[in-house]
């Protein structure tokens, strides 16, 4: 089992400034899953009660000179502490800038190793970051779990495959800050959030308790997938009435999620996505949020990066 690659400058930027801060909010520990073509950071994939997040990079988005080999179809997976990974990359970056002789010379090598730590009798696996400065080299070892067995990798891959189903209707939210602001304040009012998405391009998020109903309606959002026109007679009704009518007509779906999970998924905007799509998976299995990244300076989707979250639904029977 071997893995060795060089992080590119773009890769360092993506991880250090954007993805690791976002993924750190999703949970301290994640699976790092390396395949021949992709690097993936997977949160809670084997755990249905928490927000699942799947960040996937084509190897070219992060690395050059990418070498991987294992007897399990060149796939390697292990768990790692995101904050340690972040710290290692951050300090490597500071070493590079400190000895500043151009980013191309200071290549940041990342390698899977087994080492005998002090006071231990058994060698332990590490992800090693080696930064070459002008006169010195700095090596940092980030401890990782024992690589997953063939069966465990298979289990992870199956969970990953299952997490790829697309909702039939997706609505686009451009102003994630606005939504985050609202949800952060909503958290004080209650715990259960009703999320409803219609084929007309409406997104409703609402908290209802015995004392209060508080919600927000976002209309005329861009729709991807199944869509239809809102009946004219609905246009001047109140937000709640419109939502109820759309659901009864079969033009909208509604699920209930934990408001804390919803707020957590919004932390993904730290990864600086250009917009987000919300959708409800078939049979109301989960609430899916797909973040979209554009190629810098364009409106074209950057297909080498993908990030999406799946929020567990609290009461699947009701939808």
């Amino acid at each position, binding site marked *: 089992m071997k893995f060795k690659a060089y992080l590119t400058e773009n890769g360092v930027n993506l991880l250090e400034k954007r993805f690791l801060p976002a993924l750190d909010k999703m949970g301290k520990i994640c699976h790092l899953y390396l395949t021949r073509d992709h690097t993936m950071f997977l949160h809670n994939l084997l755990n249905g009660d928490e927000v699942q997040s799947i960040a996937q990079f084509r190897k070219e988005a992060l690395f050059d000179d990418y070498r991987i080999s294992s007897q399990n179809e060149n796939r390697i997976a292990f768990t790692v502490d995101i904050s340690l990974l972040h710290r290692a990359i951050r300090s490597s970056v500071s070493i590079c800038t400190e000895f500043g002789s151009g980013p191309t010379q200071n290549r940041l090598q990342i390698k899977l190793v087994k080492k005998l730590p002090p006071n231990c009798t058994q060698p332990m696996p590490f992800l090693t970051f080696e930064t070459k400065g002008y006169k010195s080299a700095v090596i940092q070892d980030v401890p990782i779990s024992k690589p997953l067995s063939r069966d465990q990798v298979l289990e992870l891959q199956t969970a990953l495959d299952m997490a790829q189903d697309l909702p039939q209707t997706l609505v686009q939210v451009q102003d994630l800050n*606005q939504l985050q*602001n*609202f949800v952060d*304040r*909503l958290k*004080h*009012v209650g715990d259960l959030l009703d999320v409803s998405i219609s084929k007309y391009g409406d997104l409703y998020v609402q908290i209802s308790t*015995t*004392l*209060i*109903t*508080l*919600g*927000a*309606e*976002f*209309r*005329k959002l861009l729709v991807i997938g199944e869509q239809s026109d809102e009946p004219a007679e609905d246009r*001047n*009704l*109140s*937000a*709640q*009435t419109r939502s109820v009518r759309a659901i009864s007509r079969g033009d909208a779906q509604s699920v209930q999620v934990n408001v804390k999970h919803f707020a957590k998924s919004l932390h993904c905007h730290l990864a600086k996505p250009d917009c987000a799509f919300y959708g409800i998976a078939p049979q109301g299995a989960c609430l899916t949020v797909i973040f979209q990244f554009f190629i810098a300076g364009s409106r074209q989707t950057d297909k080498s990066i993908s990030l999406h979250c799946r929020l567990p639904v609290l009461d699947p029977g009701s939808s």
Partner: protein
Amino acid sequence: MSSSAMEAEAPDLVCQLDNVQGIVDALTAVRWKRHQDAVLELSEHGVVLIVEETRCLQAKVYLQRELFIRYEYGAQGRPRFGVSLGLLVDCLNTFSVPGRSSMIEIRYPGPDMQLLLKSVDSLDACIYAEIRTRIPDTISWDYNFEPAGSTPLSFTVKSAALKEAIDDLEWPGSSIQIMLQPVPPSVTFRGEGHGDLQIDFMYYANTDLLIAFSCDRQVSYRYKYKFLRATTSNIPSSVIKDNRGSKLTIGRGGMLKVQHLVSVSRQSIPHPHIDSAGYQQPSRIAYIEFFVKPEEDEDTVND
């Protein structure tokens, strides 16, 4: 709830606000604990929110109709209803967008006697809320405030200084004596408990702190520390920033009235010059009053 059903019967009140944060600040000022029941009273002059505790402390927030950009009052008499203050503040807070003035509409009653709120500044994104109201328990205990004599016993002190003094008195705690005397004109806060602490405001020595003073005879009353603290614990930061004053008056029987002024002007408009007493166009001010009953104590010098 359909809009046609709501139009069938004219609501008691439909009003619109353009500065939610100002109202949130004003209401937060009377929020001294987590769970508080409040009574809202509507009239053609505006909305009054009343909270009280154990018949010893009452607070009122006056939101005059001039604070609203639209105020349509259609009720007979003065409708009153109860809501949870914490819920109302948290709910209003979700309508407040930092760095932007947000316009909301408040309507009462809804089809099920709810208080209805919705944002009205954007067609494509709308925040809405329905707060369940309840019938207020009893007519709240009457904090009849009467002047103590022909000369009012009152003083106006910088809100920041008042808050600081009351915060400092936490250490001796329990009960705090407030004494006003005409010669030399001064106000004394005195706490005795785990230790003694006395804070004097001398009228001539600190005219920038003690802005106004009126007293023709010495009076002294004791108040429970926790009630005194409630009057300043959540003063909005805007009051401190604007360098406003708070007015304290002692009425008949030692009833203490504490008044604060909270600016509810639109955030986008820069503040006009505010003089040292903190006066501003009166139409954009929310008035807050606390009434604190004195402790019954034979040792104090009463009038």
